[in-house]
């Protein structure tokens, strides 16, 4: 597998970010530079989270403060926009001077659907970094025909990088 990985030249890195997941924009930017690949930063505004926020009794228990706070959709959207902007700025700070091709996209969807749609655009071999995933973890190699919604859900849940190879 290791030998196989070395042979594959990644064309595109798809780095997924989601509200609530640990984001390491600098790390993925450097990875894209190392691989000499195009980077797509994909920020997913999770519709399920928005749905939760729209519930009348939606409350959030802060991770750091352990205090209970009320949630609403408008507030959540503001937080997500701010988080997306910070991520985009962090990527720009590293990649613009390096002249690496990169783009940043915000999708409102379920994480699996958003990722599936992006991967379906092609650009294989592509490297998928799930939200909060460890970029240095062992990569799973899959072929493009294996790209299904269920498979993507599984990859995202595993939190490990996946290389999508052409057919």
């Amino acid at each position: 597998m290791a030998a196989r990985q070395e042979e594959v030249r990644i064309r595109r890195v798809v780095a997924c970010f989601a509200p609530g997941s640990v984001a390491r924009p600098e790390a993925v930017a450097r990875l894209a530079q190392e691989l000499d690949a195009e980077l797509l930063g994909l920020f997913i505004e999770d519709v399920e989270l928005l749905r939760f926020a729209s519930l009348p009794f939606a409350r959030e228990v802060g991770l750091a403060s352990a205090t209970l706070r009320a949630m609403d959709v408008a507030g959540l959207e503001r937080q997500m926009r701010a988080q997306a902007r910070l991520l985009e700025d962090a990527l720009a700070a590293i990649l613009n001077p390096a002249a690496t091709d990169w783009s940043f996209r915000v999708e409102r969807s379920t994480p699996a659907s958003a990722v599936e749609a992006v991967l379906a655009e092609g650009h294989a071999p592509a490297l998928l970094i799930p939200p909060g995933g460890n970029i240095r973890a062992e990569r799973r190699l899959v072929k493009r025909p294996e790209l299904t919604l269920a498979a993507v859900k599984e990859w995202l849940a595993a939190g490990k990088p996946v290389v999508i190879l052409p057919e």
Partner: protein
Amino acid sequence: MNSPLPASALRRRCDPQRLGFATTAALQGLERAPGQARAESSLAFGIGMRREGYHLFAMGPEGYGRHSLVRARLEEEARRREAPADWCYVFNFDAPHRPRALKLPAGRANAFRDAMARLVEELAAAIAAAFETDEYRNRHREIETELAERQERALNDLGARARGDGIALVRTPSGFGFGPFSKAGDGVMEPEEFGKLEAAAQQRFEKRIGELQKELGDLLHQMPKWRREALDRMRGLDRDVTRAAVNSLIDELKATYAALPHVQEYLERVKADTLANAAVFRQAKDGEAPTLFGIPLPRPEGSEGPFRRYAVNVLIEHSGASGAPVVTEDHPSHAALIGRIEHVAQMGALVTDFTLIRAGALHRANGGYLVLDALKVLTQPYAWEALKRALRARAIDVRTLGQELGILSTVSLEPEPIPLDVKLVLVGERHLYYLLHAWDPEFAELFKVAVDFEEDMPRGDDDDARFARLIAGCVAREKLRPLDAAAAARVIEHQARDAGDAHKLSVRMQGLVDLLREADYWTGVAGRETVGVEDVRKAIDAQVARADRLRERLKETIVRGTLLIDTAGSRVAQVNALAVLQLGDFAFGSPHRITSRVRLGSAGVVDIERESELGGPIHSKGVLILSGYLAGRYMPTKPLSLSASLVFEQSYGGVEGDSASSAELYALLSALAGAPLKQSLAVTGSVNQHGDVQAIGSVNEKIEGFFDLCRARGLTGEQGVLIPQANVMHLMLREDVVQAVEEGRFAVYAVRSVDEGVELLTGVPAEEIHARVEARLAEFAAKARAFAAGGERPWQPGKKK
């Protein structure tokens, strides 16, 4: 009547033949001037006496070899003693602002410093390597994973319990929330779906979600504690790993210094600090620089950054030293004596640490001897106080002046004081010793040994030859050309003149060395290999010529008649007295005219100099003595009805001393007796109430001063000087004066009494002069009585009782 002194009495010659050598090259030179037995003995006692307070004060005038003798004796003693301990300052791990002083055996401080530097390098490598091992990584990862799993498990358990109640655990941007699952079970329920639920179901969800939120809150409260526990375990792991790397290295160094408990203790502290700060060693040297508000701080030059605390500041070390130190500090400022704490600029602020403590002269001399110039110490601000404090406390406490004066309140260092064991020798003038003794109560406690240097040595029969050896020593030391016997004899005579005594030799080494150097110069100019008498003579003449501008100007004003001094003829109540002017290190004599006026009255002898506040107290005393002489000699049973005045004519500066009192008496007697005084003679000498003429100072300069004026006007053979008999032994006159006396063109008379002097000056027997004076005074007294009988005070005409 007195005869003039023979020429042989005017200058005690040194016979070159009796010196017994051709040139000084044949002599075994003396290192130092003889005749300092008292000083040598005091010095030996002071150096040998190791008790508290027995510091030395070497006193005497400048240029008499005090420094060289003190230094030589100290070096002799120092060679017999062992080199003292080395001292270092190291970081104090308990109180960083109070650096610790470490004592090491002589010559081992540098090795210890280097060993510590190597230790830090080795520790950095060993610790970094220990943290790179698989064992460390695995154990570290294990702790991390355990924490993550513990947190995840707790959340998963909570999520599972929630799911059992149809509730989803949702990850939000900043935490977690709970929402009811949709009926389809594929996510959180839509608000519309929730709205369609029965009220009871809604309430049940809301109640259960509230409970779950509380549970989640409790769980999240636990998490920091779990993290702390994990961190503690990681620290423990770090300590274990570091200890394994550190122990062997530091224990090895401790074994090297097994005999030094203080070093052992310090190394133990280093070990403990290393274990507590292992992270510092895991960063490479060129790792992240320290920052202030995110701005990197520049590191001081030579700094090793975080490892600086393990550096060793070698304050003083004695590697290669074979004895105790003998230190002379030429600039004994406060900092130069007790050391200083330097600062470096960082971001516009001045910062310091223990590596910037610098040694002072007391540190360098510790365990040995320190020589200081007393005047320099006293004139340096706060140096004297700091020095006494160190001697009293027997410890060197390095403090900046700012700390000492309390004018700086910023955080600075308070280094641990270093025990002081030093023998201090202050070298200074006598008056400083006596002033300090009188005004500084601590001085007597600290400087119990006075080393009093003689200014001259006796000139017995063999002393000229001994002094020639001293000349030979100076010539050898200064690498000068040798002197032939005649030149050496001339130098010896010059030293006698310098002492102002035919039977003494000045041991003013600076003057002697200067003369020898300058004679050597003129020998070189003449292209000779041996210094001859002409070269010495030329050197002396050139020294005088360089300094005598004012003397020549003064002589010129007399010769041209601006200052009135007669050197021929006779005049009543007018006499030539002799004064000496000291300008720098050049003294010369010059005649002054003294006149007197007498009349009936009761004022006695009035000193015009005193009345005009130009006369000093000793001069006034001399004049008052004259009244005593007159009353006792001429009117022992009658009131003295005399008003007489005395004045130094054309004197516009102060007059001090009593050497002109005999001249003043001659002028007074001349005025009373109506006997003219020879103006070809000049007079010096003080007088007592019995009419005895007493010794004065600078007799040679005074005679030469009058001789020079007479020669300028032309020597007649009538001219001469009256000196006290007691000063004959001091005569070391210039060769030209002696020659003129030999040729009968000038004369020096030695007198014992006023009677002898007045006969020489008037050519009239003393008894006759006294008779005339007595008659005149009796006449005044009779007139006074007559006036008094008429009810009138003669000196206040018109006033009646």
